[in-house]
């Protein structure tokens, strides 16, 4: 190596080393700085902020809902910024928001929160009590929603979420097809059972529901267990009766075994293809059915009262999403103003008609039952006294997963009924409360 080479190498290495070192240090320092800048932007970090960050599924923001939000902005001086919740499942919501809660920096000031997320978020102390907002409107909710509220949204006497979206397991019946068979609307499991042979001869299923994993199997099992007079998580006689009822229908060809792998799209498709006589489905199916033209007539998707199980009790359950405010939100006051505004009794009719996803039956919007099929159905169920709260467990996702596993395992023949009950019971007990 000649002198020129050596000197240039030495000079290059010294300078470059310093540059590389300084550059690396700068990048290392800049990353947290940039992150801090990003987080400080959320809500402004203080109660004086005028921006309310709303976590919501964007399809729920119909133009009329946006108009109501604009009215809130005009009257309160707050600006509402939308933070989209990408999916529509409670689990996706948990995945999106938990890191922020754990870090003590929630990315929203107010959010729609699902049943699946609520027990954990409340237990972790991540939510702000909303007692003051609920107090003036609580009597406006029907008693069955208040019963659900007490179970799901309350801890140590404080309310942490207020119901802002309501879903009910409805029992849809094909009246036309039933009358062609000379059958009446089933009002009990026995009636469904009696339909089995004739329906099968016509290539129809007497009853169906999508029961795939995850969660869908739980929904159906919980619905039927309630009709048998029990709580699905108990894995007692009522749960056993519900499991056996579906298995018997499968064995008779009156319930599609393939429904063990069905999504709701698949069960809806089978229903609108006239393959199913009666079906349990969420209230959103009223819109799906009405949109299925030219198939649709009101008689093809009639909402009937749920069937009664072996104890003679017709029952169904409801649940939903509610508005909640993170305890460490940047703008707690603004968020509470927003919740109070959107859920005011004086505004419940306007909000409920603005989007089906904000529709909650309340005394202040009872008149909607005369014009709106969904509200009519919910009022029918309320008046008949068949509504019950969603089965509750603190570790709700773990508990639902147990029901999913055991129910589909039993239906597909992996376990006997007694083994399934024993397995389910021990796994639920292992979860604790």
């Amino acid at each position, binding site marked *: 190596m000649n002198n020129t080479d*050596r000197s240039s*190498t*030495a000079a*290059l*290495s*010294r300078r*470059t*080393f310093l540059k*590389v*070192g300084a550059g*690396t240090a700068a*990048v290392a320092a800049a990353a947290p700085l940039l992150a801090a800048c990003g987080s400080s932007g959320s809500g402004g970090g203080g109660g004086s902020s005028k921006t309310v960050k709303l976590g919501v599924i964007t399809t729920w923001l119909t133009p009329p809902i946006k108009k109501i939000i604009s009215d809130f902005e005009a009257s309160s001086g707050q600006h509402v910024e939308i933070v989209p919740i990408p999916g529509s499942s409670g*689990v996706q919501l*948990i*995945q999106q928001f*938990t890191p922020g*809660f*754990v870090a003590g920096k929630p990315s929203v000031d107010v959010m729609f929160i699902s049943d699946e997320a609520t*027990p*954990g*978020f409340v*237990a*972790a102390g991540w939510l702000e009590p909303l007692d003051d907002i609920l107090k003036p409107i609580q009597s406006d909710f029907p008693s069955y929603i208040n019963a659900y509220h007490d179970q799901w949204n309350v801890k140590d006497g404080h309310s942490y979420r207020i119901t802002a979206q309501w879903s009910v397991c409805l029992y849809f019946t094909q009246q036309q097809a039933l009358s062609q068979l000379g059958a009446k609307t089933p009002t009990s499991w026995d009636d469904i059972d009696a339909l089995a042979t004739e329906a099968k001869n016509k290539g129809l299923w007497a009853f169906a529901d999508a029961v*795939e*994993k*995850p969660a869908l*199997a739980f929904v159906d099992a919980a619905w039927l267990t309630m009709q048998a007079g029990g709580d699905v998580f108990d894995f007692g006689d009522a749960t056993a009766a519900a499991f056996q009822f579906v298995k018997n229908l499968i064995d008779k060809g009156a319930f*599609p*075994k*393939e*429904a*063990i*792998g*069905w*999504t709701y799209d*698949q069960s809806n*498709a*089978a229903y609108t*293809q006239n*393959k199913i006589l009666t079906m349990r489905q969420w209230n959103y199916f009223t819109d799906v059915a009405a949109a299925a033209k030219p198939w649709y007539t009101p008689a093809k998707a009639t909402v009937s009262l749920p069937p009664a199980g072996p104890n003679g009790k017709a029952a169904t359950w409801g649940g939903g999403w509610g508005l909640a405010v993170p305890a460490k939100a940047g703008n707690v006051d603004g968020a509470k103003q927003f919740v109070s505004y959107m859920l005011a009794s004086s505004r419940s009719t306007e909000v409920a008609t603005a989007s089906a996803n904000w529709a909650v039956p309340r005394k202040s919007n009872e008149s909607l039952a005369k014009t709106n099929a969904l509200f009519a159905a919910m009022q029918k169920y309320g008046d008949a006294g068949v509504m019950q709260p969603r089965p509750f467990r603190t*570790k709700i*996702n*773990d508990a639902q*997963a147990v029901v*999913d*596993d*055991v129910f*589909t*395992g*039993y*239906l*597909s*023949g*992996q*376990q006997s009924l007694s083994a399934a009950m024993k*397995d389910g019971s021990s796994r639920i007990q292992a979860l604790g409360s």
Partner: protein
Amino acid sequence: MTTAVEPDATPVSGAASHTSSRRGAWRRNRRRIMLCFALVLPVVAVRVFTAGWPIVKTGVTSFQHSNPTEGPVSWTGLTNYREIWDSTELRQSLLFTAIFAVVSTILELVIGVGLAVLLNSKFRFRRIVRAINLIPWAIPAVVAGIAFQFALDPSYGVIAGVLRHLGFPHTLWLSETNPARVSIIAVNVWRNAGFVAVLLLAGLQTIPAELYEASSVDGASKWRQFRSITLPLITPVMASAGTFMLIWQVASFDLVLSMTGGGPGTATEVLGHTAYVQGFQNFNFGFSAAIAMVLLVVVAVIGVIGAVARKRSEL
């Protein structure tokens, strides 16, 4: 004395000069070496941060009860690992993970070799066919899973319909235990066989044409050529591809997530999916981390076996 010292003086002086020349070389190269380290350091730091630290953190978490919705983290020793051992569902999951990964890999290699040989032969539109061969692999697994969920529906699914017309008995492909397992493996093989074929095709193209010409002169049949030339010479590539696919599939869960959710019951549950559900659905981070560590050990063992197999196949 002088003479006694002098002979020694030369070696001492030689050693000193050797040492000093090494020192000089080190001094001369020190900056260069430091520059090398400085240039490599960011990459190493990023890798430690993105791979090393998560593994260490996962290992630590596996010895904790960690659920953000259940209060502070606490040390639980081997409890999470004991729960894995005691859980019937997890043992079933481990068994199906092994079946899924091993059967898929074997089928992918067998079909991959066949496809690679076909793609290596000369025919019109060969390049287009090679590109088409990779399409299933390019489709995201979740999309493929949802599509097959519909295609396998016994009422209106196109594949279920075709199979019925071909004389297969009426089968509930995703609702019964063994058909669901077969379906998951079949869709996985459909996705990956084309990719394996491309890996093996690269191996085939390194085989000298003279070997085939010489064997033809000796009267060897195509089958004999395949058995005695092609197969032995692509065995190292097969060992590498097989190891790679095995590791990949032991840890994969996307198809299961989108096609069956692990059902019916726990029939198609794989460890990766169980870890995902426990971690990101139920938020049992400690338990999920323990499952992930078990997976890591399994993958490491497969990796070592694969490396040994590859070395032996090269001898």
